[in-house]
């Protein structure tokens, strides 16, 4: 009898420990996977760079016979005639490419003329890929023949450059970062005033009756609505609205921010109201007794004490904006853009991941890198909330 009890106890305890380790493992798995897949691409170039690659075909208007003084390393190849250093490298897909390591300031290659238009000046920059150089009456230097051969060809004083083909590498996420920053700013600009004032209304001014109760239920119901439904609200209400009052002609960033503002609203109202509730009633009575009217009391005495709550709501909101995807796919579109305009569609970081993962083939590596950035921001937001709360507790004790 006793043995049987002990056995079942051990078994049940085993289940508890197993379950807990599985939960911890889940977090570990997500962080481990995202970091191992995405860490290789994490760099400043990624954050600053364009997503779409661009090819240039240009001519070299001035030929130079100056000799540049260059210091190449063992793996790089100097072209003294033009002030360039090239290197043999690999792109993200693993193909071998010739990368430009250095361009001298007065190099003829910083004054190329675009062949398409015939008058637009472009310059070769560090980090770009050299694809092909064609000469008058000589065979073309190709990527497949390597950087060493290309450098030797260019250094040959007999060769006159006819045409240069080079490319700006893509895969950067600057556009999506800008969109995300715009979204955070615009959304908070709309959601914070609306949410904080609503919280003040519900907590300080609203009469206790059926109408208030219904209004409260209505705002709280928003919490349970799935985000894809907010997306539908966005395309039926906010997109047509922005098309009417702004230069936008389809899905756009402002409509996206409006949709996000509605998503954040219940959280901001609830968090602010909780902060208002803990302000002691005595403070209100004291202010009123000193002759202040209710408006002054609420905005000058009560509201300042609720600022930590509003701050918490802001951090929660930023986390939600960064992670939101379903609603934005409808309202903001899923086309990745390099130049962001608030009247046009673009992608936030989360939607950028979705767009790449639904593409064929899916770009898991870059998606994971973006996921690292998202996770880091969410982590910082969570820590900030903890910081605000512990500050509040310290202040309360003092």
């Amino acid at each position, binding site marked *: 009898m006793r043995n049987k009890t002990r056995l079942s*106890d051990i078994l*049940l*305890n085993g*289940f*508890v420990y*197993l*379950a*807990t380790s*599985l*939960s*911890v493992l*889940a*977090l570990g*798995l*997500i962080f481990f996977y*995202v970091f191992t*897949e995405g860490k290789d691409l994490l760099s400043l170039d990624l954050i600053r760079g364009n997503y779409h690659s661009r090819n240039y075909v240009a001519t070299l208007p001035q030929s130079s016979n100056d000799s540049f003084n260059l210091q190449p390393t063992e793996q790089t190849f100097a072209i003294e005639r033009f002030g360039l250093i090239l290197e043999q490298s690999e792109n993200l897909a693993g193909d071998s490419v010739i990368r430009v390591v250095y361009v001298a300031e007065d190099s003829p290659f910083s004054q190329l003329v675009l062949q398409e238009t015939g008058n637009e000046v472009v310059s070769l920059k560090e980090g770009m890929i050299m694809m092909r150089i064609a000469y008058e009456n000589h065979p073309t230097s190709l990527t497949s023949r390597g950087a060493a051969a290309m450098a030797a060809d260019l250094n040959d004083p007999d060769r006159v450059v006819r045409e240069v083909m080079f490319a700006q590498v893509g895969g950067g996420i600057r556009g999506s970062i800008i969109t995300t920053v715009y979204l955070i700013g615009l959304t908070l600009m709309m959601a914070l005033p*609306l949410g904080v004032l*609503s919280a003040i*209304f*519900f907590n300080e*001014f*609203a*009469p206790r009756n059926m109408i208030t109760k219904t*209004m409260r239920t*209505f705002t709280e*119901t928003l919490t*349970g*609505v*799935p*985000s*894809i*439904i*907010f997306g*539908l*609200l966005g395309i*039926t*209400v906010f997109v047509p609205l922005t098309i009417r009052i702004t230069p936008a002609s389809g899905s756009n960033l402002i409509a996206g921010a409006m949709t996000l503002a509605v998503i954040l609203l219940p959280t901001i109202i609830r968090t602010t109201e909780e902060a208002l509730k803990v302000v002691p009633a005595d403070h209100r009575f004291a202010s009123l007794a000193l002759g202040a*009217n*209710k*408006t002054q009391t*609420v905005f000058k005495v009560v509201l300042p004490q609720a600022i930590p709550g509003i701050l918490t709501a802001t951090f929660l909101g930023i986390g939600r904006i960064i*992670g*939101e*995807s*379903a609603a934005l*796919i*409808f309202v903001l579109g899923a086309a990745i853009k390099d130049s962001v305009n608030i009247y046009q569609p673009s992608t936030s970081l*989360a939607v950028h*991941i*979705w767009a790449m*993962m*639904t593409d064929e083939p899916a770009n*898991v590596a870059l*998606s994971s890198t973006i*996921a690292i950035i998202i*996770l880091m921001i*969410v982590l910082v*937001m*969570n820590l900030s909330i903890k910081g605000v709360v512990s500050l509040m507790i310290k202040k309360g004790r003092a």
Partner: protein
Amino acid sequence: MGSKSLSRVDRITYFLLTIVGLISASFIVFISIFIALKGVLPFLTDNLGLGSVSLFKFLTQTVWLNGPTFVSTAYGAGFLIVNTLYIAFLSLLISFPIGVLTALFIAKIAPKKIAGILRTIIELLSAIPSIVYGLVGVGFFLPIIYSLARSFGYSSSGGSGTLATVFVLALMSIPTITSISEVSIRSVDQSIEHASLALGATFTQTRFKITLLAAKSGIFSGAILAIGRSLGEATAVSLVAGNARSGPTFGLFDITSTITSTMLTGLKETQGIDYDIRFSLGIVLMVVILLTNMILNYIKKKVGNVHA
């Protein structure tokens, strides 16, 4: 504080704040009205000469679009409803025991320091955006499920399907269930636990037969919330479901699709029936969530609050 004591300034403030409050309360009304208005269009109009969609067929058919886009109106969402509920409940089958037992460990067994760390971990898990869960689902679960299916002699579509969706949703639901269950387990009256221990029950027996039972109502609330989230989750599901056009799918390795994943596929046109029908799906989704919530809350009332 009645309105009698308000000065003129206060009355203006009160008036303006009432308007703000009304705006906040109006959004849910907007959502309901606009989605309903657009969602019924395919059933009432003749869809630019294609003929109206039959509501009965829409709710019972097992093929999403029978025929080419923009020519056919044979949309059937019946299998999507079945798939959505099937996947949500299967995922609860995994996340519920893990979530509740983790909560029990945090609330009753773990030393204070470890409990604090675990609570932070659960908070972090619930703060991770769903798209990241979807990404991990594609990159980590799909290859495993693919080779698992292969070892059973099954050729799955790259691993996407019911099982992958269930795993991703279960992973997402664990923090919801854990955090709500933990609060209700912690608030169980300690005197009944002491009574159980005094009667000779072991700690483990007390935890499982007294504490968990007493916290039943809160644990159930967590499960209801998790189901609601699983039913409405869209992007993560659309990445791993495989987007089947017909069903219902019960096989674990077969590709599937849910109401939400179908709403996200092929979003190219901005008018016409193929666009409007998404709003009909939106109505279906809301009704499914509301009904599931009502039924589960009814069950909770029937079985809950025996010991508490």
